């Protein structure tokens, strides 16, 4: 295998990394860059725990090769809060107890932010379908949906 | 004498008796007596049992004291998820 050198941006910051051509972006984030906020729940794109955005587009980082992101901007959970200030979604997830074990939480937050970026006033049904690619086994989704709806309302007021 | 109830499939080891009167001050003594008196119960006791004393379940409480009128129910050792 011939390793590939990649220049990209993560949460706006420039990064350079070397990876094997068969390594996924998730592997790169976790094992090469020490960014373990994205989680590997399945490695087949079925659980959403590794959700990131690439140039603003939501995707599973387990379904992307590290080599593919040359010149692209990756958004991860680590870039969601603005300094000390939590994103409204992060705040509402805490207030609504929308997490139990918390391993799916980064993926849900990234996916929910992507939804609200495109649709600031989603219905409950829209939230549920937008988040169908994120599996949560603890909560039954109830509090997650409430937190997202509440965050959306707060962001509209702001 | 504590009144000890055992579950049905153990009765083959107690001559068909469901209620046993056992003289014991603690759960541990009770289990020892049971194993002595009814050797057939020994493997299950070794495998693990919990007890209910007057309706309260004790998973491991060997030193729990028994009153003379206590009703003790033998239960398989509790597990949970």
């Amino acid at each position: 295998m011939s390793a590939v050198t990649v220049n990209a941006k993560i949460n706006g910051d420039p990064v350079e990394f070397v990876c094997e051509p068969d390594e996924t972006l998730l592997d790169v984030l976790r094992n090469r860059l020490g960014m373990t906020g994205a989680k590997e729940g399945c490695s087949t794109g079925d659980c959403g725990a590794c959700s990131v955005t690439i140039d603003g587009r939501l995707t599973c980082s387990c379904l992307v090769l590290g080599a593919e992101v040359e010149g692209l901007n990756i958004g991860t959970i680590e870039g969601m809060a603005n300094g000390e200030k939590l994103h409204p979604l992060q705040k509402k997830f805490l207030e609504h107890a929308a997490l139990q074990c918390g391993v799916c939480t980064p993926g849900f937050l990234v996916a929910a932010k992507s939804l609200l970026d495109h649709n600031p006033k989603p219905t409950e049904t829209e939230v549920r379908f937008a988040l169908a690619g994120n599996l949560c086994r603890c909560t039954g989704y109830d509090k997650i949906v409430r937190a997202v709806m509440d965050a959306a309302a707060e962001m509209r007021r702001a | 004498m504590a009144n000890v109830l055992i579950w049905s499939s153990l009765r083959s080891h107690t001559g068909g008796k469901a209620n046993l009167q056992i003289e014991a001050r603690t759960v541990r003594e009770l289990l020892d007596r049971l194993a002595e008196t009814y050797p057939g119960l020994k493997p299950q006791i070794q495998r693990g049992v919990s007890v209910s004393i007057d309706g309260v379940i004790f998973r491991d409480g060997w030193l729990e004291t028994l009153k003379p009128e206590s009703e003790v129910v033998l239960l398989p050792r509790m597990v949970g998820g």
Partner: protein
Amino acid sequence: MRYERPNTLQAASQLLAKEKGSAYVLAGGTDLLVRLRTGFVEPDLIVDIKRVAVTRTIAKGATGWKIGAAVTGAELGENAALKKAWPGVVEAANLIGSKQVQGRCTMTGNLCNASPAADSVPALVAAGAKAVIVGPKGRRTIPVEQVPVGPGKTSLKKGEIIESLLLPARPARSGDAYLRFIPRTEMDIAVVGVGVSLTLDAKGVVKDARVALGAVAPTVLLVPEAAKAIIGTKLDARAMDALAAACSAACKPIDDKRGTKDYRIKVAGVLAKRAARIALDRAKGSK
């Protein structure tokens, strides 16, 4: 394994043609990466075609639509004009996977993965879509139903790449629809899928139709008998029953972890009626 990212399809084609080991084209990668990860494939070469501009564009011309091979499901869904012209095709493509998968997956990949259960393929077949293929011997265009030849197998020759998919211009008084059955509401592979595209005459009689079925045979099926059952009718109850019967009769399914033979045969008919109803309503609504 090598990773290559050429700027032209000709270069991509050459890389694929020259490779002695196993070589795969990467567009969205939502199937390829899963196979790679699970050890199902061990490529020697992966050729990423996303830097080739033509693969990334949706173009509308006089004769219809040209959809680049690397256009994602999400991009299709955001193209209002395409969605208006071929709502069934776009809906079908948008049913693939989650929002995350939509950010990457492509209809061409869905087609080349050659799964009989691919969601976009029955809709494309019903729509009469064609695939533009670039290869060492030049370009050729074939109907999409000729691309998959069996589960996981395509008719593409070594070095050939699909550049784009062509959809005809939407005829007047026509509509299309795709429905699938899955046990959950999202995230499943189709147990049965049905694509219907039809055109009405001025009196509201079906004058042209194409019906395609997914997940009921080794490849997606174009079912001319099903089209025949509704051509010349106003899709009354009898025509609908005939449509359902023709679809069920065309099924050659298997029992597997996703459904039984009997189930697929029955539900193919049920969904055909429902999809035809939606296509009809769309045809009536369109000018």
